């Protein structure tokens, strides 16, 4: 008997020890592997033959017309923490998406002319950076190195800055290098110090080993993810006191502000493009944030030549006068503003939810009104974590609050004061009142895809990989990730600022409602002198660029002065009335499947896994352009001038009668000479309605007497509940020209205009 008991104890001890070893080992990634960057699909034409061919291609003659080329300068692979997380089986992911897949997707699926890798620097390691560089060089080699390669590959990384308060928040920037040469790219990606590095790297705990146990046949990706996190955490921080060019290659470098980032790049003698993006995306942008502080000279506003207007995260273009919260001057406290015609702040909705629950519970109207006031205040003081102030609230309970309901495909929780239009309207007079600082961006679009799929906007298919829409595969996994549904309390909860500051992770954001807003991405178009790396780089630097919401619309926008033309992106100093010409051709309608040129370079199975067998596959039929909209912005002429009055959107609407051959318009602005103010013009070419994934994320079913939404259709969220629906809605896809910047000549003497 005693022997049996000892045996049982030993077995139990062995099981416990094995469980412990598994738990610790799986949690710390001991069973995982570091993922490779992959090898791009070989070209059907060997690289050396291709190079010999391209070397013999005739160069473009001087003075010839520009070419329009399409690209995507913003794509992530599984080397980004969030991308890896979304690729896991528990989130419905289909496995790793390495750098080589992005290359193959650009060549065979989306048929782009150029693209760039931009994984989050916050997850980088020396090994990952080395492998990324090798993979993009291989990608370029498969497309050829000569004068007219069919695909030009750029190297970059994303500086993923997020601040906890409006004062600390500068937003994300992509850093993209002109060449792939070792001495002309960063020694290491430079990460944003603070929240993103904490969330994506330092405090990331990996996947609970219980998840791997529950999903045993798919356990390896979870082990690999935990190895991915541990390997990143093992890299030591760089010495913050040393200049960037004196640091060893094998450390983790961080910059806290845009100014820091630019300084570090300068120290390495690099002049990359630094491109703000997703600027008005409220998912992580603290309420109350604005562009104003980013005009400070130490943050080098002049170095940001381009901005992403549109991406798979939405449209950052439009300014609206409403505010999400009204912040105190130090940004530490806020109060909840009243709703306006088209906008209900989320803090306001927090009050409504609590009030409705309170009344249902049977409390007095006065008591419930008081609780609503308290709830609004709590939510207004919890930043992007406002949703935590109302425990038990489902995504649909928030209805359309916090959203720009009259914007074109806005990002989730659009922040108008970090919109592109707001940025163009403001100036900083502090340092040089005669020549106040301002942003002079050119526009591009991007996908910001996290599944190694650059240029996804060609067809509204495969929502769960062509957009960022993802989520738990069942209720049990949801509870494992987000915790059990909280009780629907009738009083709001305030999590104090200092406690919020210590919290990190995606639970701080309204993740589920957000997932219904992800769409396929936009494109960057350039008017380039040639199909070459140098010509594309020059066009990007000259702002001879435009953005599209995905389709390949052809767009020209010029200021015309006799025979002279100033293209989009130009800066013009004149006192003459400006006259413009705009022309656009709609994108080609698509047919199913892939064209022969894609199938010739890669086998059918690969095309199926790479892009679900759906490529850019144009017919001869163009979509129609229905109208041009002209936007006029007169930047502030004096400190404190109200921005609302400076942005005229639209300034003009010019209808088109497109018979399948495009549309062209001419217009001028006689007011320019009268007001004598610097003025910015850009156009939007609007295409007939077409399908877009999550094009209309919220549909209101019930409104109150004031017209405010009280109930919405179930959201097309990223988790299992939305099934295989691609959630396509008809929207007017469009292209945005880069602005033409007019400066009215200043008097030689006398007052500033």
């Amino acid at each position, binding site marked *: 008997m005693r022997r049996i008991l000892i045996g049982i104890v030993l077995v139990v001890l062995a099981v416990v020890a094995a469980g412990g070893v598994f738990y610790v080992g799986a949690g710390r990634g001991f069973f995982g592997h570091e993922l490779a960057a992959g090898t791009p699909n070989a070209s059907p034409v060997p690289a050396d033959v291709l190079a010999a061919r391209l070397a013999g291609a005739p160069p473009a003659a001087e003075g*010839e017309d520009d070419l329009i080329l*399409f690209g995507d300068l913003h794509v992530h692979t599984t080397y980004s923490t969030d991308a890896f997380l979304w690729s896991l089986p528990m989130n419905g992911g289909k496995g790793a998406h390495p750098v080589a897949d992005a290359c193959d997707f650009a060549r065979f699926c989306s048929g782009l002319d150029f693209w760039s890798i931009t994984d989050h620097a916050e997850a980088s390691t020396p090994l990952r950076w080395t492998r990324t560089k090798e993979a993009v060089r291989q990608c370029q080699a498969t497309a050829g190195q000569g004068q007219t390669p*069919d695909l030009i590959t750029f190297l970059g990384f994303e500086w993923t800055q997020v601040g906890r308060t409006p004062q600390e928040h500068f937003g994300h920037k992509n850093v993209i290098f002109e060449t792939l040469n070792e001495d002309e790219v960063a020694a290491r990606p430079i990460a944003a110090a603070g929240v993103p590095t904490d969330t994506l790297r330092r405090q990331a705990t990996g996947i609970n080993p219980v998840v791997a146990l529950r999903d045993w046949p798919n356990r390896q990706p979870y082990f690999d993810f935990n190895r991915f996190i541990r390997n990143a955490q093992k890299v030591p921080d760089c010495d913050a006191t040393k200049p960037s060019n004196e640091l060893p290659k094998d450390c983790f470098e961080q910059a806290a502000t845009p100014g820091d980032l630019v300084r570090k790049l300068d120290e390495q003698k690099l002049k990359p493009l630094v491109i703000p993006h997703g600027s008005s995306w409220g998912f992580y942008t603290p309420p109350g944030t604005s562009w104003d502080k980013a005009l400070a000279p130490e943050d080098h506003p002049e170095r940001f030549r381009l901005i992403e207007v549109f991406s798979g995260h939405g449209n950052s273009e439009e300014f609206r006068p409403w505010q999400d919260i009204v912040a105190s001057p130090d940004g530490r406290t806020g109060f909840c503003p009243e709703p306006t015609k088209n906008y209900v702040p989320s803090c306001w909705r927090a009050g409504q939810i609590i009030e409705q629950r309170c009344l249902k519970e049977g409390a007095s109207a006065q008591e419930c009104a008081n609780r609503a006031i308290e709830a609004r205040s709590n939510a207004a003081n919890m930043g992007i974590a406002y949703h935590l102030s109302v425990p038990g609230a489902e995504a649909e309970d928030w209805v359309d609050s916090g959203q720009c309901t009259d914007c074109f495909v806005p990002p989730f929780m659009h922040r108008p004061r970090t919109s592109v239009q707001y940025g163009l309207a403001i100036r900083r007079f502090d340092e040089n009142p005669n020549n106040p600082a301002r942003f002079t961006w050119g526009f591009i679009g991007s996908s910001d895809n996290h599944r190694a799929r650059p240029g996804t906007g060609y067809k509204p298919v495969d929502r769960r990989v062509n957009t960022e829409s993802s989520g738990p595969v069942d209720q049990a996994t949801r509870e494992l990730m987000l915790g059990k549904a909280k009780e629907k309390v009738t009083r709001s909860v305030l999590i104090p600022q200092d406690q919020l500051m210590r919290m990190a992770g995606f639970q701080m954001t309204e993740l589920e409602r957000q997932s219904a807003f992800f769409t396929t991405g936009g494109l960057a178009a350039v008017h380039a002198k040639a199909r070459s790396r140098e010509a594309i780089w020059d066009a990007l630097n000259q702002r001879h660029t435009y953005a599209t919401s995905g389709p390949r619309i052809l767009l020209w926008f010029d200021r015309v002065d006799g025979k002279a033309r100033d293209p989009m992106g130009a800066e013009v100093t004149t006192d003459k009335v400006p006259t413009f010409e705009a022309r656009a051709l709609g994108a080609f309608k698509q047919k199913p499947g892939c064209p022969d040129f894609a199938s010739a370079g890669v086998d059918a199975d690969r095309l199926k896994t790479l892009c679900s067998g759906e490529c850019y596959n*144009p017919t001869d039929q163009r979509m129609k352009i229905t109208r041009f909209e002209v936007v006029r912005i007169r930047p502030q002429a004096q400190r404190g001038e109200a921005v609302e009055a400076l942005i005229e959107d639209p300034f003009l609407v010019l209808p088109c009668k497109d018979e*399948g*051959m495009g549309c062209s318009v001419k217009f001028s602005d006689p007011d320019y000479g009268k007001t004598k103010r610097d003025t910015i013009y850009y156009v939007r070419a609007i295409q007939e309605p077409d399908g877009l994934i999550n094009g209309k994320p919220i549909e209101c079913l019930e409104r109150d007497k004031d017209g405010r939404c009280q109930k919405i259709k179930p959201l097309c969220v990223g988790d299992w509940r939305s099934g295989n629906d691609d959630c396509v809605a008809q929207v007017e896809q469009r292209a945005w020209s880069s602005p033409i910047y007019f400066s009215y000549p200043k008097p030689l003497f006398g007052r500033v205009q």
Partner: protein
Amino acid sequence: MSSEAIRQDVTDAGGTRWRTRLMLAGATIGLLAALAVALGAGLPRGVPRDAVAVVGETPISREDLARALSAMEADKRNPLTDADRALALRRLIEEEALVQRGIDLGVAAEDPSVRKAIVQAMVQFATAQALNEKPSEADLRAFYAERPSLFASAPQMRVVAVAAPAADAQRVARLRDAVASGQSLQQAAQALGEEIAPVPDRRLSPADLRTYLGPTPAEAAFRLAPGQIAGPIEAGSAVVFVQAIERIESAPPPFESVRAVVEAEWRRRREDGALDRYLDTLRRNADVRYAPDAPR
């Protein structure tokens, strides 16, 4: 009984005895053979002279052992001992036993990585001979001369295009008549007040032309010689006329500047040829049976 008959009887009796003895001897040999087979597993078997051991039917060669020993020696500071030698042999035997067991279990057929390794090894085997071939200068020059387009990029075209709505038959007919009368597309468009399509006035690659004209008109344009006009070409709700203004066939580079690339390509094609021939032989010799609905 006659003496003849007695002689016959004696002869018969002697023959019967002889046959009986033969039968007994055969049975004994058979029994001994059966015994030898039955006891065979326990008996030592011969090892080929160039082998150091045999696992199943597979010999472990002395050469393999020598290779394993030299690898072991390279990792060791001290001279090899007999125990090291025995260990090396044991490892080789274990490896062979694992391989044989793997084959018995069907790993080669079921494990994709093993299949891939086998396929790769066989491809190398099939192309090994071609790898050692050395082309002469004349071979390379002839190879290059026979394939002028291999090292030349696609032609580039400068075109003028005019589009008209397909529904407006009169407009389309006017354009068609104008170009049929010998006018250039530009002249015809000017005379009829038609707008020239926004195709850049520059040399364009096939991909670039597709961006501006769409797949069908671009393909038609690339079949044109300078001055020729194609159209009307149906392109969705529009029809397109396109005239080639300039066509630039890129000149192949001089042989000397791409000699190394030519040799690499020559070699690649020899290897491909060798592999194709080997696969043809395998296919011919293999017993392949197809289901009625199998794609053929």
